[in-house]
């Protein structure tokens, strides 16, 4: 038998190679979207009153008169050098200003997913275990409500109850705006730990609670339902009967044998949902004044800041692809039968 490490390494390398066409396709799409939608960036930059000559000059200057494939070539070359272009609005390099936004969204997504996975998976397991009991009915009812509830409504309700009425948790932002953190990585939880400033960690975590729950509720509900049905399916299988016949206890049956098998489809859902969160955080970020990538792109759209829109979409797509790569690697880790 081959060494496990070698198998894993070969598998990961193959998956990375398969990413190349995906990434190229992504750049082509972001490039096309921006060039196919109406609106002239030169016009936007110079304003309504600019003369036709000035607009033409700027277009020439920005390379907008070149054929599309040449423009795409330039775009790709720049990307490979880590150059995401220059924001039309702030006139600074996007690569230098986008990071804090990415970090903010990433931090929020991670906490939302942790919430969704922890609650969702456990609720699903217990529901399957105690099928057709009050717990099962209650958990599935909550899951149904969770799926059907509009995120903005949940977010506003949270703010009203927990921030406004009870005053337990802050309603806006990533931190106290009067006392900003000296950011290093821009993952504020991590930064505060690096500074050994644990009071600040608590404050930052408090800021994360409401938006994480708002963002994580739908994935939580989907994961709970998926885990439940997957567990029920697995519990009927022959190998679970074998485990019972061996004399194993219920805990071992459920948390070792059934859960690992049931996690395979759940993992797919988790990967997809993580992607949805990254892209779908705009609403939550807006309501909670969260300075994330969603809001960065949203503002860019209203200014027709094409390079920023392009880069924002590209970054979100890139993270999505990466998350799915991680999911694929986890598949292989869980299921030895998978081959590519």
């Amino acid at each position, binding site marked *: 038998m081959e060494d496990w490490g070698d198998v894993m390494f070969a598998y990961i390398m193959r998956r990375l190679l398969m990413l190349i066409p995906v990434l190229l396709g992504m750049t082509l799409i972001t490039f096309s979207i921006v060039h196919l939608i109406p609106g002239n960036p030169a016009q936007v930059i110079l304003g309504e009153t600019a003369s036709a000559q000035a607009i033409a000059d700027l277009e020439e200057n920005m390379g907008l008169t070149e054929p599309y494939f040449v423009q795409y070539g330039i775009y790709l070359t720049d990307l490979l050098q880590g150059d995401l272009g220059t924001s039309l609005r702030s006139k600074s390099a996007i690569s230098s200003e986008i990071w804090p936004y990415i970090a903010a969204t990433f931090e929020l997504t991670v906490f939302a997913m942790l919430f969704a996975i922890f609650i969702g998976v456990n609720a699903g397991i217990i529901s399957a275990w105690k099928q057709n009991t009050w717990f099962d009915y209650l958990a599935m009812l909550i899951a149904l409500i969770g799926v059907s509830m509009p995120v903005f409504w949940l977010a506003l309700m949270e703010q009203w109850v927990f921030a406004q009425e009870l005053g337990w948790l802050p309603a806006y932002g990533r931190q106290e705006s009067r006392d900003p953190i000296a950011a290093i990585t821009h993952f504020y939880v991590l930064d505060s730990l690096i500074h050994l400033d644990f009071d600040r960690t608590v404050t930052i975590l408090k800021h994360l609670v409401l938006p994480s729950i708002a963002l994580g509720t739908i994935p939580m509900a989907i994961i709970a339902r998926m885990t439940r049905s997957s567990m029920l399916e697995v519990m009927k299988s022959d190998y679970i*009967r074998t485990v019972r*016949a*061996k004399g194993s206890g219920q805990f071992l049956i459920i948390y070792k044998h059934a859960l690992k098998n049931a996690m395979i489809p759940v993992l797919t859902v988790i990967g997809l949902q993580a992607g949805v969160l990254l892209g779908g955080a705009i609403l939550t970020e807006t309501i909670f004044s969260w300075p994330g990538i969603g809001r960065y792109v949203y503002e860019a759209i209203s200014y027709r800041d094409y390079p920023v829109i392009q880069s924002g979409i590209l970054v979100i797509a890139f993270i999505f692809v990466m998350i799915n790569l991680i999911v694929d690697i986890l598949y292989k880790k869980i299921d030895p039968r998978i081959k590519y």
Partner: protein
Amino acid sequence: MSEIVLEIKDLSTHFFTDRGEVPAIEQVSIRVHKGEVVGIVGESGCGKSVTSLSIMQLVPSPPGKIVSGEINFKGEDLAPASEKRMKKIRGNEISMIFQEPMTSLNPLFTIGNQMIEALRIHQKVSKKEAREKSIEMLKLVGIPRAESIIDEYPHQLSGGMRQRVMIAMSMSCNPELLIADEPTTALDVTIQAQILELMRKLNKEKDTAILLITHDLGVVADICDRVIVMYSGQVVEEGTKREVLKDPKHPYSKGLIRSIPKLHGREEKLYSIPGTVPKPKMDRIGCRFAPRCEFAFERCFKENPGLYPTGDGRSSRCFLYDKSEGDKKINAATNKEATIGG
């Protein structure tokens, strides 16, 4: 006969479904002695598997439930035993192997992991000792390269090998009784013979009693000492292998044996018992087999037959053997059979 390991008395297991109560097995009584191989034969749906799962209390519940009867295992009644008690029995004193070797092992854990788990549940042994014991068991069931197979996953093995692994795992705690629920049905014929031979070998070497569930009379002829014939949830006949195969008493057993293709002889068409197995339902009146039985008479449709002794210690659930019917009936039946050309 040596001491009795398992004695099932009047066991009834019913399923409580949305469409009402369904008796899967009714008043089944089975006795297994130490070191004996007992076969339970019958068509699909006759209650063989439910009987075996009931012994282990592995009948899916709900909807299945043991409603009456005793399962005496070494003097202890397992029918009312708690789940905690059953966990100590399962895999340790009574173990079980199943029909589908392809799906009976967890695909996500190595053979070793699953075998070691089985050992460590019941015995206070270190991981290392359990691993050594597992390798030893794999060798015993004839698995080549046991030292490396133990670290492989089930999908890397063939069906026959997986069934060997299942047997190794089920035998690792030296159970008194091994229940084998159609262990060879999913395997091809040559592998079938090997697996049966292996079971026979373990039975002889370890003196483990085996309760073999099968629908294959060939398997019975191969390794069983005694045979129990079941039909529609009831035991209809019991006897030694030779007696039942050579001289079946119950019309159903006669039919079963007549429907085996013979190597010699020139029957134009293979015999088959007319009709199909009836769906079990509550409070049925009359012999279950009567609608398909060529010897059936009026009483068969009006009363439920008991188990009547047929002499030489055997019994048959058929009115033909009820003394009050007199010898006439039996003679009539025998004559009829003779004319049919048995």
